[in-house]
């Protein structure tokens, strides 16, 4: 049972790490695009 729980924990940690990596990557790209858009505007 403990081994089964370990497997679930590892699986969820892996999934969450992958999603966090994707979100952070997306955030970096978004900030880059926002910066380009803002510097090209006279706001």
């Amino acid at each position: 049972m403990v081994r089964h729980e370990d497997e679930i924990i590892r699986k969820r940690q892996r999934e969450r790490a992958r999603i966090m990596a994707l979100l952070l990557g997306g955030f970096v790209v978004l900030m880059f695009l926002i910066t380009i858009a803002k510097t090209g505007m006279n706001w």
Partner: protein
Amino acid sequence: MTNPAALPADWRDFLALTKPRVMSLVVFSGLAGLLAAPALPPLVLGFTAILCIALGAGACGALNQWYEADLDKKMRRTAKRPLPDGRMDRQSALHFGVGLGTFSVLLMGLATNWLAAVLLAASILFYVVVYTVWLKPRTPQNIVIGGAAGAFPPLIGWVAATGHFAALPLLLFAIVFLWTPPHFWALSLFVRSDYAAAGIPMLPVVAGIQATRRQIFLYSLPMGAAAVAPWPLGLTGALYGIAAGGLTLGFLVLAARVLMNRATEPKLMGPEKRLFGYSVMYLFALFGALVADRWLAW
């Protein structure tokens, strides 16, 4: 036996905390406000504004579920949510909600303007503090006043695009504000026993079924007037005016059928269920017509 609460929560449970179905209507009304504005920001800034509105709505959902976890356990409709079902601990939901809300406001301010960010922050605080914590457990007027929180997105979308207020987005605010009570009370009529079991003073629980039906019809009248008003006021074209008139007529007919219904059993509340379903479609179609009018007719 594995204790689900002792495990790290699944990412799908974090997604469920954001109430994606509610979020879709919020995002759509925010998008409509942004697209109805006279000047559009660059695509990436418009996208970011809508993203921030979505994240802010997600934060509201998470904080609402964090605060109401014990109440949700008592209602059949909400008992399978991540917190009452024991799939997530409350602290994770709180951290997620606060983090998401703070992030959405800061990103909105950086990407568009700080007036839009202040409005987004106000809508999140209004939903969580004024509606969820203060009004909902105390008064049957919870939906009436709390409805203001859901009325912010079109205003935020407009302000994100233009940086200032105008008559049309204020009317959009009024439409959603007046639409919320008939929409929610139609639902609360056929899930009344759930609210009663949880001790939430929704109007059908406190004032009774017939009084709620009367209020649904009465609120539908100013809602309809607000929905049609942009056309005679010269803020939109005929396309929107005709669509708003037709859609509102349908809403009033269904609200009148609710008024005439005398059933007390949820399974006999067909008119209430039809009005609830129509009310969701109504707002989508109304705002869709607004955007179509702005882009096709002008």
